[in-house]
């Protein structure tokens, strides 16, 4: 009875075109923003921040990035981990070379750097398609990780080969540390929240604008798109650039804000690429909401399994990790068979039902 669009009239074009045309949705969105920006920072503690909220926000950015490339533009990439590493190492080099720089600039610059690398590796996509391209992106994954492992300049010739984030401030007039051991969890949380909010707003508006329509035309059938006047060079490369920007920002945040110290093969390996790919499959290909849902699901699942199997049934952790593989694999197949559009589609189906509820027609 709550979810109704009756009495919700649009009198201007801009009202008709808004992202949340139904008032109830819009209120829900503002409410979620309010909770996220104002309420949670006061309630947050280290456990919630480190095991759930911050990884969720960071992976949501990566999932949006990959969704732009795979879900909207149809180019499957298995190089996400490598591109995240580019973001992380760019931010490390910037942090150590320019100690005065604030974190917002560093993270944005890391994103731009990754976008450039992404475009370079996206160039073959003009000739190679489908899973040929997926395999080609593996070249990016393995080459980039190898490079960050072998070339000493990237990790400032440190003995362990690790990189660790020094303490840096939020913004040049907000002198709160975001990275390093003295950073408080609410500051880290707000920093990530800010990026997620701005980037998902940009992504949503890009994907429904002319650029997004070009991406989707390429995804649905690239030759037909070319015939009706979509420039495949421009569409594919912008998708690679924007996607890599997001992935790079996410990789930078994962290193600077969340982990603090990183060994490249461990954190940015091929498993990370698959993790993000699974997020968008489960969440929903071609949906911004789906990226959030998938990221939340994949972050929550290990925590939930640990609570259930290790603490509840007192299995050992190895066994619980094996169960995680089985469950994730089965879910991937289940979603691809039953609902290829993922959790996002289930959500919109639920909303359709809610509009009629409690009446059947």
């Amino acid at each position: 009875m709550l979810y109704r669009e009756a009495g919700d009239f649009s009198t201007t074009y801009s009202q008709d075109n808004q992202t949340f045309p139904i008032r109830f949705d819009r209120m829900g969105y503002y409410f979620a923003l309010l909770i996220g920006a104002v309420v949670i920072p006061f309630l947050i503690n280290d456990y919630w921040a480190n095991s759930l909220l911050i990884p969720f926000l960071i992976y949501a950015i990566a999932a949006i990035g990959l969704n732009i490339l795979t879900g909207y533009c149809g180019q499957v990439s298995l190089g996400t981990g490598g591109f995240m590493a580019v973001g992380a190492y760019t931010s490390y080099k910037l942090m150590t070379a320019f100690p005065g720089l604030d974190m917002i600039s560093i993270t944005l610059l890391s994103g731009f750097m990754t976008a450039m690398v992404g475009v370079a590796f996206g160039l073959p996509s003009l000739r190679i398609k489908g899973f040929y391209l997926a395999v080609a992106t593996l070249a990016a994954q393995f080459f980039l990780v190898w490079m960050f492992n072998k070339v000493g300049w990237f990790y400032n010739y440190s003995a362990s080969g690790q990189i660790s984030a020094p303490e840096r401030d939020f913004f040049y007039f907000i002198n709160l540390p975001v990275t390093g051991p003295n950073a408080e969890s609410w500051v880290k949380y707000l920093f990530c929240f800010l990026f997620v909010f701005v980037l998902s707003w940009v992504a949503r508006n890009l994907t429904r604008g002319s650029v997004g329509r070009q991406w989707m035309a390429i995804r649905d059938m690239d030759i037909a798109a070319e015939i009706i006047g979509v420039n495949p060079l421009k569409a594919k490369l912008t998708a690679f650039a924007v996607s890599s920007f997001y992935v790079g920002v996410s990789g930078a945040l994962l290193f600077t804000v969340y982990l603090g110290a990183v060994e490249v093969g461990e954190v940015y390996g091929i498993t990370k690429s698959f993790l993000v790919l699974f997020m968008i499959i489960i969440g929903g290909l071609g949906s911004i909401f789906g990226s959030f849902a998938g990221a939340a699901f994949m972050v929550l699942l290990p925590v939930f399994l640990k609570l259930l199997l290790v603490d509840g049934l007192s299995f050992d952790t190895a066994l619980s990790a094996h169960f995680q593989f089985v469950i994730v694999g089965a879910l991937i197949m289940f979603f691809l068979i039953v609902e290829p559009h993922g959790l996002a589609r289930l959500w919109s189906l639920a909303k359709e039902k809610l509009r009629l509820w409690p009446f059947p027609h």
Partner: protein
Amino acid sequence: MPDQLIFAMEVILNGLLNGVMYSLVALGFVLIFKASGIFNYAQGVMALFAAMTLVGIQQGRVPFGHLINAIFGTDIHYFGWEVPALAAILMTVLIMIAFAYLVQRFVFKHLVGQEPIILFMATIGLAYFLEGVSDLMWGSEIRNLDVGLPQGINDWIDVTTFEALGYGFFIDNLDIAAAIIAAILVMSLIAYSQYTKNGRAMRAVADDHQAALSVGISLNYVWILVWSLAGMVALVAGVMWGSKSGVQFSLSLIALKALPVLMLGGFTSIPGAIVGGLIIGVGEALFEFAIGPMIGGATENWFAYVLALVFLVFRPQGLFGEKIIERV
């Protein structure tokens, strides 16, 4: 003959034999891809699962032992018998056939007619699932696999090359055995697909699904057949790699190495898989030998992919693949 040239020859020989191993994995991919258009990412994990199962049966381990122990508080690990290698191999083959049936029945039957990329992602899910099942069934420790294949340096080659060139080549007996087995496997596969009724059905399905259906070939049956064959190829590959470096998780990563092999050779060609494997094997060994030391080594991690990437830009269908014609 200069030393460098002799070293290079040894590197090339070892690269060739390594390439045979890649080809073995790639072969399983080609079989499934030709018949069903599914690009089976899980092939490497199938090799891992097959090898694990073989070791488990051979040593008389209790399947799902850890799980049973964790649930019922028991402490059982072994049945207390040991199965001879041949019987264990036969039982593993049966398990791989059962696996093929289950995969077809519960997953890919429901995905007929989907886009290739959806099928590809489903096989990634399958790979994760199978890896978890394999860990649950047999545990995730490294296991030694011994089915009686020869191991160690080949003395004859060592002595002969030492007499002829003044430097003894180091060639592993196991690699030679792998090359011979791979050759037998390929020839029997080709014979099977050319001269038997099932083989003809397989080729018909590979050619055109609808036409095959209309002359009364059961697609379901052919697909189960193909997955079983791929399972057996996976078993062979798993045994080879397992004897070489122990049965462990990294075995499933060889699947990734097989991908550039396929891209070079073309997805639809069995000879292509072999030639592609040899090119990649030699290429990465030579690159590591000649240029690796200058740029920090461990280049075999990425060389194959970059080679395939560069190659594809110039010839998108691979060496032996069918020409890709696209229509709107």
